[in-house]
């Protein structure tokens, strides 16, 4: 049965007596939906993604899949269901792209790490989906920042069966590859995977979401359909700028930055 990834009233601070980075945050990531978390730098987006991935443990509140808290799910089983594509790209990784993609199968393999049945086919399908055919034989270290990010995204796709948490997935990507990325995200969501993305980009990401969440100072200030959440009033509260989005423009959206004069 398809289950939902839920954060229930979670709060988090990195140290004792330091300010809370997340305060009483509740949200849901249903299967087959794309949820986007927006907010300015330091608003708690990545911390929330890390809590949902089980990397950080909230000080209060619970993160759960269905009725099972993350801490009650064995690590390997959790990794089979859920993967995080972290914001940080590994430096000095000595592997080829193909070897990196095979590492996505790590939680699915047996104790001796023999290849699982159909592993090569699964990787080939993912390579086709993410359009990485021309990079497969290259060394990871030789790739550009954007290409590395796409490879790490593909690795996460290979790993996760139910939920994908993508921390700033569009960073380093040019507009063409941003659009490609969101097309891939939509295709994955259509296959039943719940996808969460964090972003501070208001130009492309909002178009492809089912639900948007806007954060400010560690709290959720709006949660719902993107058109309602990313209203001029809410964006003004979060980003302290008069930015508005025209949603009904043919071929996409127009973001009005509210700048009076450029030159």
């Amino acid at each position, binding site marked *: 049965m398809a289950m939902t990834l839920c954060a229930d009233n979670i709060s988090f601070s990195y140290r004792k007596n330091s300010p809370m980075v997340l305060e009483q945050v509740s949200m849901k990531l249903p299967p087959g939906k794309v949820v986007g978390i927006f907010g300015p730098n330091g608003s708690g987006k990545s911390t929330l993604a*890390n809590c949902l*991935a*089980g*990397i950080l443990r909230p000080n209060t509140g619970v993160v759960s899949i269905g009725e099972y808290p993350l801490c009650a799910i064995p*690590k*390997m089983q*959790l*990794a*089979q269901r*859920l*993967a*995080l*594509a*972290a914001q*940080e790209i*590994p*430096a*000095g*990784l*000595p*592997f080829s792209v193909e*070897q*990196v993609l095979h*590492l*996505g199968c*790590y*939680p699915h*393999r047996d104790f001796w*790490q023999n290849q699982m049945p159909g592993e090569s086919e699964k990787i080939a399908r993912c390579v086709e989906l993410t359009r990485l055919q021309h990079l497969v034989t290259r*060394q990871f*270290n*030789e790739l550009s920042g954007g290409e590395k990010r796409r490879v*790490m995204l593909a*690795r*996460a796709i290979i*790993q996760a069966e139910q939920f994908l948490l993508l921390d700033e997935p569009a960073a380093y990507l040019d507009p063409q590859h941003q659009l490609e990325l969101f097309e891939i995200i939509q295709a994955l969501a259509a296959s039943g995977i719940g996808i969460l993305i964090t972003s501070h980009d208001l130009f492309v990401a909002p178009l492809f979401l089912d639900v948007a969440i806007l954060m400010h100072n560690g709290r959720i200030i709006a949660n719902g359909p993107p058109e309602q959440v990313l209203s001029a009033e809410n964006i003004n509260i979060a980003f302290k700028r008069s930015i508005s989005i025209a949603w009904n423009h043919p071929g996409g959206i127009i973001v009005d930055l509210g700048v009076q004069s450029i030159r």
Partner: protein
Amino acid sequence: MDKVNSQRSYLWQLGLMFVLSCAVLLMALCCGAVKISPAQIIETFSDFDGNSTASQIIINTRFPRIILAGLSGMSLSLAGLAAQTLFRNPLASPYMLGVSNGSALGAVTGMLIGGLNGASLTACGIAGGIISLLLIKFLASRAGNFTGTILLLGIASNALFSALVSGMLLFAGERLQGIIFWLMGGFWRASWPASGMLAFSTMGGLTGMLLLAPAMNVLLLGDKTAISSGLNLRRLQLWLMLIVAILSATVVSVAGVIGFIGLIVPHLTRIVCGPELRKLVPACAVGGAILTVAADTVARTMCSPAEIPVGIITSLIGAPILVWLILAKARGNLWQ
């Protein structure tokens, strides 16, 4: 098909290393203050009860020494590979955790205060290494257990223990020369019991690293991705630290501080066998044994019958290789 080709090429690489190790073994048995021919070696191994001088030299002197040197090389190169993976730093060495200088401090303390040698000296060295590891682990746990934190604590404790060893040498008196010679590293104290103890720790470390190799591959993706892949990061870090500590402390306690093997052998074998750790771990062990036995053979034959500490030879070989590796890294092809 690619997988089959890759496995075939790996078997060829291992075969080549096996042939190379046999050649180095033969050279090490033949060379020394007394020259021994390959025919005498074959005769000795076909008749263990031989009482000839050559047989006595081979069985009682050279063979235990070659075994000790080979096991030390294996231990140091495996510890180096574990350290480079743990810190995700291609220039990390087993000595970066501070364990080797902790071990040296334990051994020097044993020599100066207790006048120890042999097995008790080895035990003191291992105890010093384990205590320094526990100290680093305790401090790291207070600072969040981050990989970078462990590295910095290792560098700090390395400097502290090194200073303490140097300070203790001021009180060494007439033992100073012997201790300095020991600190430079060498296998002249080779014996079957020392080899047996080192074999125990080396095989333990090798087995552990073979089991951990798949997780070590994932660790290279970064802490967050590793945890998200199902790794128990803290437990893996602890195992790797233990392996680095036990392997390097055991070698330091039986043979002194031998530099560069742990740093350069993982890189050299990575060039031959690639970065995948399940293939790299056994290749690294064999490569470390070959290089250390070759270096020891040079150390005991270059100024024969006098002996040069093997640490000097490994540093003389290792420093130019390290420079080459750094230049290769600057050109961006270090790990290819």
